């Protein structure tokens, strides 16, 4: 398509590099350097979307990230489709496919536009007043319809092929915004040698200098000054200059988040990440974020072709595009004059309508008229004509009292409107700085700072170019700790305006649709209704009308909304309040925030040195905390049930081998180690002999079980502590806390050795026979090496701490070897065990075997509300100890009261029935609901060794119920169970001492 609205010259686009993309399937030509918005306008396309609620035709309002209306779905190839992109910030590139949103069947003919006819009903908050009858209809009819109508674009539906990156960065001075103030700040800071990061959201630094083509700085054209500034910044190693990078969040202690868009504008992104999150910790921050222009509020001000005045100027000067051939500028201030002059200079027909009276207007008026522009002062805009494109503006003279004279239609194909300026104080507000209202410029500006930042330029309400530069320089220098200051000269930038909340009109108010929030379809009438209904805080008005809640977060609408509320309440703006700005400044992809933390890097997968062996053997794995543990080892064709039954039998009848490396291990060393252990565990430690082990139980201070594990005394001043797999980090932290903060006098040191030692458990009657040939330096005979002993020696030539312990109830050894030797030792043990039929087993078999013995697992039988007595372990408590962590809590009234749940065994009437873990227990299954629950099943297995199912449970007064019956819930109903002792096998423990 030819570009009929492309000006013959000018702009920063590269006319030697044509670019071709599509809009709703139609081919659109542009140039490198175009935004989608500028290219569409160059081709005369103004209708680009439908509004959220009323499905009104919408065009392009702005040239920047404040754009509320021109939201497109952008397709960058398979898997790279996403909605709600602002046409004004998406850069064109070959092959880009863009689509308008929120219409059916087409953008031009949208059935949803019926809503516009119903707009008298669909006012602010109408949905709170209806859709309540019949009650069932909300879920089934109303809500689905409302949802289908809402929602703008479509969410991506397939996984994203792009990668995202993260970078933590530090600098002395972070400058946000590379307009004149930001550039001056960055230059001043950079010259001190300090580390500077300068971030700008646009593809090209320069801000207003990119389109303020008539400006001069220090006697030369602004474009030259800009080029020199960029060359200097680029040459300095202490400066990082980031384009396409939005500072979107200002968090605590000068932690500022930036989103850098790396590849979206590239036709061939290669392997680069799509976007990068910069987490900058800045010494000082300079906020030079500029200002946003305010739309004027008049009837049908949302018609395609109606733009912000400064945006018209941007399209003309920066992109070489005429948004129309017959342009009317409507304004209440002087800044639009520059746009009008530039439009006239581009050869366009221009009329300017200024709300201000002739004497309110400044000397600039004369220059406009001198340029041949028709200027109507003291005129209001009554409304716009046209539907899918503006065709004219109805204006009328208006006096100071707001009385309108005769209406007059100015035909046009484009309107540039300006209601003044709003400093972009978002980041300042996010930094928790307090905003002050400056009546002179009718704006909230940065007031008291809370963090180490300063604002400069338009972000601070300073609009004049020379003042922006001077202020930026001062801010940058001060942030860098320099006393040097520069003064700049520049061409003047007239910016005064008369604040106007809604343009005066004499039209029937019930017929006027004057939009405040374009995207969310909030009109001035809606604001009025909210105030009438008692919503007076601006936060209430926002929430009731949804003004400022759209994807632009009210950048163009907030001040108009605030002003309308204040006007209606006849009060000042500050007393209505300003909304607190929250991150992000502009929407940020989840991918940017997630960064590399996807797939394998989402969370570490911890594996043991023996993992590869288990994998090769076809083991199934389960996740336990961050670990991946072998769950069971199915042989070909075996079900889990079969495999576990086989493994269980093998351990009791022969020998099994189990990877227990994930057990937490802590080396507790020091002269006071025993005393330390004594204070932390419920049982006694002072008299444990070197070379002996003890099962320890540890409580939190609230008396509930925290963790357990076997502990060996390696030397008088050295303990080898084990913890549960999931509890390792928690226990070490718990120990360090008490050691450092409660008992700093104890001479004890703690070191995690979880991963120093791999643990190979060899369990079963043949265990001794299997390892005896491999072990050197340790007498394995039962007399010399009894149950609950620990010896050091070597196995397969590798030094070992060999524990004779058992979590199965069988004769057993846990071979601790340094991790890098574990696989070799495991393979050697396995080979030595083959004549004995050694069977590798996983966590499931481990669970079954210990349940057969009634051994608890912390986290399964206990849940953070269970005391030692509840699980039948109160006998472990050292009676002689006056105190240990948690002891006092065991004497609380409700902990000693009868009725607590106690650990018992359960057997079902049907030996084949395996209860669900978590099944609840009742005495009478026929009682009415709600039933009285007596406890629940904590562990439940089919036990091949018992020849039936078994279960452990916590039951109220359980130990008094032995032999009694209860009923356990099943998916279908209930099953009768008998309460039994929790030890199902070998209650006297003969096997373990074999």
């Amino acid at each position, binding site marked *: 398509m030819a570009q009929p609205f492309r000006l013959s010259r000018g702009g920063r686009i590269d006319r030697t590099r044509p670019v071709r993309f599509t809009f709703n399937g139609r081919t659109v030509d542009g140039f490198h350097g175009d935004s989608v918005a500028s290219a569409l306008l160059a081709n005369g396309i103004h209708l680009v979307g439908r509004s959220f609620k009323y499905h009104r035709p919408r065009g392009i309002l702005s040239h920047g990230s404040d754009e509320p209306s021109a939201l497109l779905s952008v397709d960058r190839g398979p898997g790279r489709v996403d909605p709600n992109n602002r046409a004004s910030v998406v850069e064109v590139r070959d092959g880009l496919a863009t689509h308008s949103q929120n219409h059916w069947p087409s953008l031009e003919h949208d059935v949803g536009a019926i809503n516009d006819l119903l707009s008298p009903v669909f006012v602010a908050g109408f949905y709170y007043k209806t859709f309540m009858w019949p009650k069932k209809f909300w879920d089934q009819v109303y809500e689905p319809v409302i949802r289908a109508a809402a929602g703008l674009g479509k969410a991506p539906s397939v996984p994203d092929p792009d990668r995202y990156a993260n970078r933590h960065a530090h600098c002395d001075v972070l400058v946000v915004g590379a307009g004149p103030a930001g550039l001056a700040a960055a230059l001043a800071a950079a010259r001190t040698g300090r580390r500077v990061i300068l971030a700008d959201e646009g593809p090209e630094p320069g801000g207003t200098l990119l389109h303020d083509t008539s400006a001069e700085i220090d006697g030369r054209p602004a474009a030259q000054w800009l080029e020199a500034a960029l060359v200097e910044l680029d040459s300095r190693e202490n400066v990082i200059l980031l384009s396409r990078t939005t500072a979107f969040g200002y968090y*605590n202690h000068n932690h500022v988040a930036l989103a850098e868009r790396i590849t979206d504008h590239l036709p061939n992104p290669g392997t680069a990440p799509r976007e990068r999150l910069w987490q900058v910790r800045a010494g000082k921050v300079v906020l030079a974020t500029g200002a946003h222009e305010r739309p004027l509020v008049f009837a049908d001000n949302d018609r395609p072709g109606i733009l912000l005045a400064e945006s018209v100027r941007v399209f003309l000067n920066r992109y070489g595009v005429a948004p129309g051939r017959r342009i009317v500028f409507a304004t209440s201030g002087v800044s639009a004059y520059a746009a009008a002059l530039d439009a006239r200079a581009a050869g366009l027909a221009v009329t300017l309508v200024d709300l201000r009276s002739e004497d309110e207007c400044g000397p600039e008026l004369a220059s406009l008229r001198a340029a041949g522009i028709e200027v109507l002062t003291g005129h209001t805009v009554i409304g716009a004509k046209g539907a899918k494109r503006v065709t004219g503006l109805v204006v009328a003279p208006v006096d100071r009292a707001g009385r309108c004279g005769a209406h007059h239609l100015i035909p046009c194909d484009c309107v540039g409107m300006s209601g003044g300026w709003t400093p972009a104080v978002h980041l300042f507000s996010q930094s928790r700085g307090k905003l002050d209202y400056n009546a002179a410029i009718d704006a909230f500006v940065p007031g008291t700072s809370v963090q180490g930042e300063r604002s400069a330029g338009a972000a601070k309400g300073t609009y004049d170019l020379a003042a922006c530069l001077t202020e930026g320089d001062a801010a940058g220098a001060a942030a860098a700790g320099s006393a040097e200051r520069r003064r700049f000269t520049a061409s003047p930038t007239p910016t005064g305006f008369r604040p106007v909340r809604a343009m005066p009109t004499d039209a029937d108010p019930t017929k006027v649709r004057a939009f405040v929030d374009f995207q969310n379809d909030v009109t001035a009438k809606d604001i009025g209704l909210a105030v009438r209904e008692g919503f007076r805080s601006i936060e209430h008005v926002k929430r009731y009308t949804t003004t400022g809640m759209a994807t632009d977060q009210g950048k163009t609408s907030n001040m108009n909304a605030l002003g309308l509320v204040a006007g209606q309440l006849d009060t000042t703006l500050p007393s209505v309040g300003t909304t607190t700005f929250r991150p992000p400044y502009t929407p940020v992809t989840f991918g940017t925030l997630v960064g590399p933390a996807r797939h394998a890097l989402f969370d570490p997968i911890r594996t043991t040195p023996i993992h590869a062996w288990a994998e090769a053997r076809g083991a199934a794995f389960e996740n336990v905390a961050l670990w991946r543990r072998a769950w069971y080892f199915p042989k070909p064709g075996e079900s889990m049930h079969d495999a576990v039954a086989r493994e269980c039998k093998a351990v009791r009848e022969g020998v099994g081998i189990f990877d227990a490396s994930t057990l937490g291990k802590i080396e507790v060393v020091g002269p006071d180690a025993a005393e330390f252990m004594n204070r932390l565990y419920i049982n006694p430690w002072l008299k444990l002999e070197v070379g002996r082990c003890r099962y320890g139980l540890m409580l939190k201070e609230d008396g509930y079980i925290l963790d357990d594990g076997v502990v060996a005394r390696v030397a008088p001043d050295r303990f080898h502590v084990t913890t549960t797999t999931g509890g390792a980090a928690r226990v070490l932290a718990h120990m360090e*806390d008490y050691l450092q903060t409660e008992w700093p006098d104890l001479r004890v040191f703690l070191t995690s050795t979880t991963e120093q030692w791999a643990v190979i458990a060899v369990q079963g009657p043949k265990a001794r026979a299997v390892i005896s040939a491999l072990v050197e330096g340790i007498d394995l005979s039962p007399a010399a090496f009894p149950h609950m002993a620990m010896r050091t020696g070597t196995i397969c030539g590798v030094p070992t701490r060999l524990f004779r312990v058992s979590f199965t109830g069988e004769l057993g050894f846990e071979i601790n070897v340094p991790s890098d030797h574990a696989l070799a030792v495991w393979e050697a043990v396995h080979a030595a065990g083959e004549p004995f039929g050694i069977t590798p087993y996983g966590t499931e078999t481990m669970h079954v075997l210990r349940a057969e013995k009634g051994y608890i697992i912390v986290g399964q039988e206990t849940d953070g509300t269970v005391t030692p007595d509840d699980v039948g372990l109160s006998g472990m408590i050292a009676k002689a100890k006056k105190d240990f962590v948690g002891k006092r809590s065991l*004497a609380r009234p409700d902990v000693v009261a009868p009725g607590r749940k106690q650990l018992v065994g359960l057997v079902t009437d049907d030996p084949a029935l395996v209860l669900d873990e978590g099944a609840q227990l009742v005495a009478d299954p026929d009682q009415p609901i709600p039933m009285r629950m007596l406890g629940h099943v904590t562990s439940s297995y089919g036990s091949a060794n018992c020849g039936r199912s078994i279960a452990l449970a916590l039951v109220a007064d359980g130990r008094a119920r032995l032999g009694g019956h209860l009923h356990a819930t099943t998916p279908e109903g209930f099953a009768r169970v008998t309460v039994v002792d929790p030890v199902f096998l070998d209650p006297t423990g003969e096997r373990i001492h074999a």
Partner: protein
Amino acid sequence: MLLIACPHCGNRPETEFRCGGQAHIARPADPAALSDAQWAEHLFVRANPRGVHAERWCHAHGCGRWFNALRDTVSDRFLETYPTGAQPTQTSDARA
């Protein structure tokens, strides 16, 4: 993410630290001598001031040391950090 001055390592990002709640709550020398109410107070009742708060931090992914800090819970600004067992030079609203 807060920036926290570890007394040993200097300014470090919050993710390296673990917050341990209110500081200066000493474990009673003889818990058995306390009434249930006193023990509950020790275990559960916490100063929760809107303002300067003395709290415990551990540089868990750093030097591993516990220390104390005064922080304003409204601005989240740290007034000072100081070693476990020491007293702050400034006063907090929350006197334990």
